[in-house]
């Protein structure tokens, strides 16, 4: 008897190939999103909003309608779409440079308005596509091309904790930070993104999942070292957890 153990999600293009660097986290997260959209049977009702950075080429991977947004503006584009098409499933896919740096004002206000959209924010603590410059989430001491001596708080301050701040907004229904460092964490990440999607489907408010992801190329580490770096270093600064879940009481 044959058992199907692997199936390409319908929400990924049949001839689409991820173009990310070896060891990059984006592919895993895009795959999780595609699986969940299939599981919720939302493929025909989804509009995804791409952003600027390595998160930009959604239309090359997803078998979904895609709207492109300028740097940091995808929550606004998503707001416009969702207000016009409230029956559609609308999510933004952004990096930390996009959602937490240039577009954090938009992120916060979208959360405060309680827009019925979902943001998946990939946090690799640097501007990946432009070659590894420091972003708002860069760790203290982290060497980047714009902090060659390491991020110094006296010069450039401290890392921004996006999921925690978003969780404080009254319009936020769900805010979490997850990692994809191993199978267990990938499963937990999928659970969190599933929860976030459910918030939108149920019309409960804004949902936000920050995913810590490796950027081996710009971190100048091997993929394995990068994953260990997330577990051993980044998670001590950007701690994993569910910071808000307005349905939590129901589940107890």
């Amino acid at each position, binding site marked *: 008897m044959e058992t199907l153990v692997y199936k390409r999600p319908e929400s990924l293009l049949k001839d689409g190939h991820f173009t990310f660097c070896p060891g990059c986290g984006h592919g895993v997260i895009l795959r999780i999103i595609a699986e969940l959209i299939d599981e919720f049977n939302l493929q*025909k009702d989804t509009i995804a909003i791409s952003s600027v950075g390595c998160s930009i080429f959604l239309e090359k991977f*997803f078998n979904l309608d895609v709207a492109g947004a300028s740097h940091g*503006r995808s929550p*606004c584009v998503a707001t416009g779409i969702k207000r*016009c098409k409230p029956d559609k499933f609308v999510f933004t896919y952004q990096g930390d440079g996009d959602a937490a740096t240039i577009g954090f004002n938009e992120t916060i206000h979208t959360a405060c308005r309680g827009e019925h959209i979902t943001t998946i924010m990939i946090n690799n603590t640097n501007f990946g596509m432009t070659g590894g410059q420091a972003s708002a989430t860069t760790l203290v001491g982290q060497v980047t091309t714009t902090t060659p001596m390491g991020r110094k708080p006296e010069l450039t301050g401290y890392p921004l904790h996006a999921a925690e701040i978003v969780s404080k907004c009254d319009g936020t229904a769900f805010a979490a930070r997850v990692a994809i460092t191993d199978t267990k964490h990938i499963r937990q990440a999928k659970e969190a993104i599933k929860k976030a999607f459910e918030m939108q489907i149920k019309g409960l408010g804004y949902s936000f999942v920050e995913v810590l992801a490796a950027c081996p190329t710009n971190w100048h580490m091997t993929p394995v070292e990068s994953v260990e770096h997330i577990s051993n270093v980044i998670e001590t600064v950007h701690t994993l957890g569910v910071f808000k879940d307005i349905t939590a009481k129901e589940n107890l």
Partner: protein
Amino acid sequence: MAKVLVKGNEAIAQAAINAGCQCYFGYPITPQSEIGEYMGKHLPKLGRTFITAESELASINMVIGAGTTGTKAMTSSSSCGIALMQEAFSAMCCAEVPGVIVSVMRGGPGLGNIAPAQADYFQALKGGGNGDYKLIVLSPSTVQEAIDLTYKAFHLALTYRNPVMLLADGILGQMMEPAEFGEYPYKDPDVSEWALSGANNRPARNIVSLHMPEGAMEELTNRIFEKYALVAKNETMYEDYMLKDAKLVLTAFGSVGRVAKAAVNRARKMGMKVGLFRPITLFPFPDKALHQVAQNADMILDLELNKGQMLLDVRSAVFGACPVEFYGRTAGGLLTPDMIMAKIEELYKKLDNTEESKAGVR
């Protein structure tokens, strides 16, 4: 429908509602805040969307979201607020996203002041955003025309899948005069061929403004510029007034157009052959028509509430067919019929007033 006494800003807002505008996204700024207030009062009652966004940048990007679904949406702002939207205008033109922007100009540069001005002609017509792109820009000179052009703005935005700007100024925004709304006169095109709605029984589609493959961006831009040529062919509008035998032709847009018209009437009473050419579409600029006019005129006097911005398009259209003079004030300084008359009298004396002049031999 009878005429009503209505303020320019509110007339624009009501016209947008009549045109079927489903969403308004905006951020307050004088002298156009009444547009947002009017929308905030009326759109929710109609079950439509009103959001005071966190910034002008957010407003216009919300318009983009609505536009990608083929929904009629609008934002409005003034001068320094419009400056913040320029990135999005460029993106909209590239991704062919429709949307309506109302720009009610105030004094500048910088925060400037809240007095009427026309110094954002370049901002509207000559970019600010990156790359090769053009907004369709409509310039009303009366409250009635503001209503009619608001209707047209929504229709053109959907027809050509391009942002359309209604370029008004603080005079028009704040003045009240009688006007008639009438019905929205256009039949809009079907958007289902391109709008985002989820990949239901059709392949997935996208509306984006990044095109990396070699040659792709040039090919796209060439196609979009063919579209602009079509817009110029089909949509160019201007008003000509007393031009048939005019030796001195005034050019003016927006509010200044009506002041100039009053001056033309006075000059005619004094026996001077003066006429007015008023572009209504600033892009497409009525350059061919103006060139014709210039060929038959002895001089053009361009009047603007700025330091000479449309002047560049006037000179380009005239292309040496006759001399072009400029007279303007800026940053809240206004042109009155008296001032324009003084300038007309000064220039008219310099013209060749013999029968052999261009106008004379016609």
